């Protein structure tokens, strides 16, 4: 390669590197000031901008989201600030947000700080004007401090007066401090209070024990507190109610029965029906008695006849003529059983 060409290439690389560095620096500085990014312009109106300058940062939730572009005075006490906000941040800032001008740190630059609202408003859009807070100025703070100091001085003077009175023996507090009788009374009162507290403590322990015993089911209150008891009582009442209904039916039937018995007794007394005949006719009773006696003797005779018949039949079983038939009958019986 020709020497001059190589030299030119090296020179070109050198110039390119230097220019690239410069452009990079300009780009990064510009980016910090939101010059190259997509930003939307938003406005805020202040009475006093406290030395804010174009290029100062705009901060939201601690993030640098843009920079101040223009500052315009539109009236004697109205200053309009136009600042660019990053478009990706814009949807997160609601229209009820507030702008305030503050120092970045103790000795830093002025910045516009956007404070979030109640998040009820619509997202901020380009061209919107957000509300602003007037910054509390140092002289205002000093003025407030001055008033506070005056009040503190008055309070101290009053306190000093009270302390002097107490030291001089004036008033109740002074008496309490200096009089030994009050101190002794106070000591006794505390002693009594301690005793009372101990007695109260014991009483509370007893009450607690009582309450714990009441909580069990083996006493009346415990039963009352038992949740199953109302159900059982209800069931019992229901059963009693049913039983009373059935008792009522039974009583009604008994009444009917008694009425019928009464009628029967009346009929018997009047000589109507078989019972009257059975109870009042003596001949009939004698006839019945005799009949029964006859029946008794007849039954006895029948029994005797039956015994004799059994003996005869037993004898027939062993007779050669009928013996086979009886055996056959026994076999058939045994087969049926199996």
């Amino acid at each position: 390669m020709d020497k001059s060409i190589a030299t030119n290439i090296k020179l070109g690389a050198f110039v390119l590197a230097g220019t690239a560095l410069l452009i990079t620096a300009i780009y990064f500085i510009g980016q910090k000031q939101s010059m190259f990014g997509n930003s939307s312009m938003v406005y805020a109106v202040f009475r006093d901008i406290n030395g804010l300058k174009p290029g100062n940062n705009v901060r939201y939730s601690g993030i640098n989201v843009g920079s101040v572009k223009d500052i315009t005075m539109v009236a004697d006490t109205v200053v309009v600030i136009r600042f660019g906000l990053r478009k990706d941040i814009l949807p997160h800032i609601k229209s009820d947000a507030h702008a305030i001008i503050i120092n970045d740190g103790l000795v830093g630059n002025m910045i516009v700080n956007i404070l979030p609202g109640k998040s009820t408003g619509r997202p901020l859009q380009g061209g919107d004007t957000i509300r602003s807070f007037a910054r509390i100025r140092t002289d205002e703070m000093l003025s407030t401090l001055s008033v506070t100091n005056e009040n503190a001085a008055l309070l101290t003077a009053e306190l000093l007066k009270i302390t002097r009175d107490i030291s001089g023996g004036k008033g109740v507090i002074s008496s309490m401090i200096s009089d030994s009788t009050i101190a002794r009374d106070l000591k006794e009162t505390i002693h009594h209070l301690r005793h009372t507290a101990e007695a109260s403590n014991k009483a509370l322990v007893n009450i607690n024990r009582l309450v714990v015993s009441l909580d069990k089911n083996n006493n009346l209150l415990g039963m009352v507190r038992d949740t199953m008891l109302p159900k059982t009582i209800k069931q019992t009442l229901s059963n009693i109610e049913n039983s009373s209904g059935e008792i009522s039916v039974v009583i009604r039937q008994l009444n009917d029965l008694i009425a019928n018995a009464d009628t029967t007794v009346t009929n018997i007394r009047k000589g109507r029906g078989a019972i009257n005949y059975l109870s009042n006719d003596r001949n009939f009773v004698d006839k019945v008695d005799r009949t029964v006696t006859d029946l008794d003797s007849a039954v006895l005779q029948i029994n005797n006849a039956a015994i004799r018949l059994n003996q005869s039949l037993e004898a027939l079983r062993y007779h050669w003529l009928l013996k086979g038939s009886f055996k056959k009958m026994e076999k058939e019986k045994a087969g049926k059983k199996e």
Partner: protein
Amino acid sequence: MKLLNTLIRSVLNYLEELGQLSRFAGKFFREVVRRPFEGRELLRQCYNMGNKSLLLVGVTGFIIGLVFTLQSRPKMLELGAAAWLPSMVSISIVREIGPIITALICAGRIGSGIGAELGSMRVTEQIDAMEVSGTNPFKYLVVTRILATTLMIPILVVMSDAIALFGSFLVESIKGDVSFRLYFDEVFASLDFIDIIPATLKTFFFGFAIGLVGSFRGYYCKHGTAGVGVAANTAVVETSMLLFVLDFLAVMVTDIFY
């Protein structure tokens, strides 16, 4: 009376030289827009002044960044402002230290080189020979050198600034455990166009001054070979003084506009 006469003569000589320098500068502005353009010679001079100075400027810038941070760090720590170190170092280097130190180094290396080279050409009558042969020595020798310094010094300053900031970052990284991104985020957050644009613009004037004074001293070199050394020496001294004056003027102008 004799002292007064000497003083008056010195003032008159100074004014005469200033006038000659102004005429020399005027001639440069006339010749720079006239054909023929010595492009090849310009590129050669740019290479000699830019590329060949990069190592010196780079090393100097790196050491400045290191030393400046090392020296500032303890005090900043005492104040509880170690986090401001990148901001402080970057503004100092970009606004002032980088341009002026680089320009002074270039005045030493390039200014003296131009003075000595042109002076030796003058005393060996090479310039006269060029005039006789029909070549415009001013255009070929002076215009190309002044243009080269004017164009190369800003680039050298930008590179020196970058290298110095890198040196500063190294110290912060080792001593303060600061990440590269955090350091340069802080640097660019603290820098503004008001820092970088006037600082870069004034380096063009620095480059022009280095080339102009060096060429002037060499072009009008007298008294043989001894005069070559004087020309080189004078070029460095006068350029250095002129650089500070220009720096002061640049700061004044910047202060007026911003």
